[in-house]
């Protein structure tokens, strides 16, 4: 079995004009950092991988996850977790309900509840299950978003400027937590950022995207 996330000859076009090209394999537990000026299409690359590319773009090439071609699978069947720069916790659900939303179905009510509590305890948020997400601090929200994603058992992890909204010391803290967890679970990570510190902390390969179409 070929573990990892492989982007094979990816090319994304807008109105027939190539926007970005990537051809790279990310092994399990490794981080690929994609850098580049804003507007170059970094988020578009992630949208193609999650299967949510807007119809104004066309994507070509294959995405393989753990040896399986997921290019044409619907977004909910891809098993790819994503973190954005905003926590995007569902504001109408409690912290616990946010986590349970992403957990695979099955298990009794009590067992699921215990799983939620455990997961919160792992990131130092014991007893937060019934809280309103809006009452959490920025760092707490970021941790809940991470835990929510991990509880859905993803096979790869995408980070879309995930740390850029956090204060400097908090950023390092959350970043270390994410990379450490990804390493423990042997998840391939694709990080999009414009912050060189993020790239250095990740320690993996770095691709510098440039605009293919001028102007």
């Amino acid at each position, binding site marked *: 079995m070929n573990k990892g996330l492989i982007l094979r000859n990816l090319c994304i076009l807008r109105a027939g004009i190539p926007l970005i090209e990537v051809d790279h394999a990310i092994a399990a537990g490794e981080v690929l950092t994609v850098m580049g000026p804003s507007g170059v299409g970094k988020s578009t690359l992630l949208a193609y991988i999650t299967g949510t590319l807007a*119809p104004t773009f066309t994507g070509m090439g294959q995405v393989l996850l753990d040896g399986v071609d997921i290019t044409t699978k619907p*977004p909910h069947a891809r098993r*790819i977790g994503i973190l954005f720069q905003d926590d995007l916790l569902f504001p109408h659900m409690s912290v616990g309900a946010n986590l349970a939303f992403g957990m695979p179905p099955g298990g009794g009510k009590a067992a699921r509840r215990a799983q939620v509590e455990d997961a919160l305890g792992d990131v130092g948020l014991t007893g937060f299950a019934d809280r309103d997400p809006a009452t959490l601090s920025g760092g707490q929200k970021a941790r809940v978003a991470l835990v929510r994603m991990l509880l859905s058992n993803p096979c790869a992890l995408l980070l879309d400027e995930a740390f850029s909204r956090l204060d400097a010391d908090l950023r390092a803290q959350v970043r270390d937590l994410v990379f450490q967890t990804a390493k423990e679970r042997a998840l391939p990570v694709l990080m999009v950022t414009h912050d060189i510190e993020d790239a250095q902390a990740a320690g993996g390969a770095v691709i510098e995207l440039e605009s293919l179409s001028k102007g």
Partner: protein
Amino acid sequence: MLRFLPALTLLAMLGPVVAGLWGTALPAFGHLPAAGLAGPSLDPFRSLFGWAGLSAAVRLSVMTGLIATSVSLAIVVFITAGWSGTRSFSVLERMLSPLLSVPHAAAAFGLAFLIAPSGWVARLLSPALTGWDRPPDLLIVQDPLGLAMIAGLVVKEVPFLMLMTIAAMGQAQPRRSLLVAQALGYGRLTGWLKTVFPRVYTQIRLPVYVVIAYSMSIVDVAVILGPSTPPTLSVQIVKWMSDPDLSMRLTGAAAALLQLALVIGALGLWWCGERIVARLGHRWIMSGGRGKFDAPIRAFSLGLGSISAFAILFGLAGLAVWSFAAFWSFPNVLPDSFTLRTWGRHGPDAVATLGETFLVAGIAVLLALALVLGCLEAEHRSGRGLTRRGLWLLYLPLLVPQTAFLPGLQTLLLNLGADVGRLPVIFAHLVFVLPYVFLSLGDPWRSWDTRYATVASALGARPWKVFWQVRLPMLLRPILTAMAVGIAVSVGQYLATLLIGGGRVSTLTTEAVALASGGDRRAIGVYGLMQTLAALVPFTLALIIPTILWRNRRGLHE
């Protein structure tokens, strides 16, 4: 299934309009099998042009429509130009929703109670200023020029156009343009008119057209405030259509086609006016004038806007006072004593009618909501938004005058023997409820951050789970508001209920308007008030329910 919803929505919205126009065209050319008449013939038009009141009725329709629209638009534009971003403006803004939800008929009755010779204004001024110790014999309400009717239309169209303008400003980023203009030495009003207004107007153009078509063909306000000999063309059409002599329907149908032509002509005229104003405006911009009359225009427009808002509010107060009034002698400002007798007499009937009103409104709104949510979700999943042409289609049922297609729809149903009361009325209401629910929900639905959907599907949620468990609950507030808008639209429908219901479906609006000719102010007070409550209560619920339901969810109240 989802793929067919946009087509189904179009059918529900435009089907009755097209069928109605067809059903109008046939009898207009002498074809009415139900009366044993077969066309084609031009007799209906001959009889229409033979009617002595025609030119006056046509003039009334066109003039009231165009003047009411121009005045409303001017008030809205100058208030927004002079006051947007100030505290007075946000006060007006907060009054919008309740003002908007007051049904036209209730607002018209309220206004009549204010300005009539025995109304509150005359009572306040008498006898000290006027010397009147009895109501003067003046034709203020139902005046032959239609001034009272124009006023009644203006007070209701100002909040509508205001809401549309505020919505349009969200996309036009007025603050920055205004800052630049002010830095270049322009006053607030002139700066806004020269830099922001052109962009805002292109956004509110369709709503303005709707106001023109609506004002020209409205029936209930014209019955209450408009002149009666002759009435406006629309009122005369309804008279002909309700005549026991079936052949009068032919004349009515011919008049309905004429009404359609008048609206098209008026829209064309307005379109030419837009070109002229644009050219003059361009010259004005090029002239570099900084505007000499900013201050008086600002004050004047705010005054007019406040008068129009307070006309509705005091009008409603007038309805309330009359409904509890015992003997009320002139020129006393308040009744000599209060009584519950009117409510005792009319209350039970009014409550029963309220039930029927809500039944019709509830079903129409639920159907509309299902169709609109389906369309918006289909739009989201395909990633293809509403096109310009789609927007026109959405506005089309509001642009075709009601008096042009509803009589034809009634005739068609009559021929089919399907004029069975409530169900056709619900579908007729749906024609008007659908566009408003769509327009009300469209923007908040589209401005939802779709990254929530990306996150949810990355967590393994299927599209319908995202729809039901994430998007709907997060958009509960705008959904309830759209429902309240839909209910208010349905509650206010007069012609659709009257004609399509064939007299067998009565809502608060048809009952209230039917009271107009009788002149029993106490009964009118009861029905007008109930009608307003029927429209206002859903808006209140739309505010309260999310607040209670999400009381522990701060993120949804920002």
